[in-house]
């Protein structure tokens, strides 16, 4: 019988933490959107560095990814300008691909990969970080998959088998000063955003909509889309 004193409390995120997470997710999506602008060679080098860093931090999962048969999975956020093509197997790699205008050309995307996972960026990030259950997302139709189902299942189970990943922090850690700033930003983001939200509610509607348009440009999304 388990020791009742040993039970840990798993806390539910507060509204403030949720707001900070949405902000962080929006910024990271905007950062991902910039990657292809570096040019193919530079963006591949950057993503290779990120992959090496993740492999160092999660050796069990990355060893399993290298042991999988050679195949490629397209991870496609439907509300971001880029998709990620992940090759698993011996030549594990990650590439950024620009998505088509007005959403992906799904047939073309399917043609470059053995399997495709599509969904909102924030949900995909939650899934990769093990914060949310993939089956539940699939039941609610927030996530769609096509192609080799076994490959997607293997990838999902391998990544979910890791203790929680922190992809935003990992990505920031290859950007020098950002890595040092991130913990401070995270600590303060919730309360600061709460105050901004409170102030925003007092603004006249035209000004409020103007601010929302600026935010949308920064994060590469439309207001109200849940980022």
């Amino acid at each position, binding site marked *: *019988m*388990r*020791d009742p004193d*040993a*039970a*840990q409390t*798993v806390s539910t995120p507060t509204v403030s933490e949720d707001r900070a997470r949405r902000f962080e997710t929006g910024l990271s999506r905007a950062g991902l959107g910039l990657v292809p602008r570096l040019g193919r060679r530079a963006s591949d080098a950057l993503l290779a560095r990120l992959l090496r860093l993740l492999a160092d931090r999660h050796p069990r999962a990355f060893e*399993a990814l290298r042991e999988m048969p050679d195949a490629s999975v397209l991870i496609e956020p439907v509300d971001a300008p880029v998709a990620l093509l992940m090759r698993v197997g011996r030549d594990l790699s990650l590439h950024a691909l620009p998505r088509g205008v007005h959403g992906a050309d*799904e047939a073309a995307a399917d043609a470059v990969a053995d399997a495709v996972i599509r969904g909102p960026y924030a949900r995909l990030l939650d899934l990769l970080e*093990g*914060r*949310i*259950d*993939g*089956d*539940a997302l*699939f*039941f*609610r*139709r927030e996530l*769609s*998959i*096509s*192609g*080799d*189902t*076994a*490959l*997607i*299942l*293997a*990838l*999902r*189970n*391998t990544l*979910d*088998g*890791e*203790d*929680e990943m922190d992809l935003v922090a990992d990505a920031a850690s290859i950007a020098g000063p950002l890595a040092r700033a991130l913990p401070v930003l995270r600590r303060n983001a919730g309360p600061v955003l709460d105050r901004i939200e409170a102030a925003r509610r007092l603004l006249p509607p035209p000004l409020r909509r103007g601010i929302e348009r600026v935010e949308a440009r920064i994060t590469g999304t439309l207001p109200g889309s849940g980022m």
Partner: protein
Amino acid sequence: MDNFELICPAGTPAALRAAVDAGADAVYLGFRDETNARNFPGLNFTRQDVADAVDYAHARRVEVYVAINTYPQAGNLGPWQKAVDDAARLKVDAVILADPGLLAYAAKRHPDLRLHLSVQASAANVEAIRLYRDAFGVRRVVLPRVLTVPEIAKLNAEIDIETEVFVFGGLCPMAEGRCSLSSYATGLSPNKQGVCSPANHVRYEQRGGALASTLGGFTINVFGEGEQAGYPTLCKGRFVAGDGPAYLFEEPTSLNAMDLLPELKAAGVRALKIEGRQRGKAYIAAVVRAYREALESFAAGRPVPHIDLQAMVEGGTQTTGAYTRGWR
């Protein structure tokens, strides 16, 4: 009266830690091969993973059970017997077995190893359960999900070994261990290879706003735009018969028997099992935490709280299954 034991699933080491931390009394898992009924890509435990899992769980006074619950075939007993030997060597607290030959092997080779009878054995009557107890020293039986609560109460009154029942997760409407639907469509068996609806036989395709699921080349469901989806299992397929498409066996739905805790306690049930070794650690943490809270409330004599697990269920619907409706 003793409290219920809460038995929780783990498909990966991270899921095991999530289950332990969220309040499991015991966690069940399988080796990474065909010896267990959840033989899915990327899932399950190496021997070293099991050793680590036992260390982690035992340090927190949580038990570890290993499911070796598929049926070995003639001429290929080795992997199953080795799984039993390794589970004993790794000092797990129980093995969950279905095959009588394997039960005999475990009882003879490892007399101190605690044996549980898997739901895959489908032992649903007094004589069958007594036979497993007398012949192999089975200490607990996991009951198939086809019995009503009054039937479970009647059964418990006539046997002297512990019973465990499923309370949350996937709902197998067929008698476990005797289902051949998936085998018919794919040539691979849940009972022999541990794969119900094997992923390499499953395809999803968008048809406009609709989502079609196919298994072994057969279209088994088409979910309309906005309609909640389910797993691609034949027993939850939608087929055209008579007046139009309908769920002939079972709808995509999940079992949730949280409201039945008082009835299950009165029926003499010892342990409650959460299903879902194929689910992610976020599911495990949420469901185990909810059931731990419900059990603590019930044990303290308070009403069973209503805890919303709607976000986790298949097809967006929940049922108390055969426990209350006498389904066969």
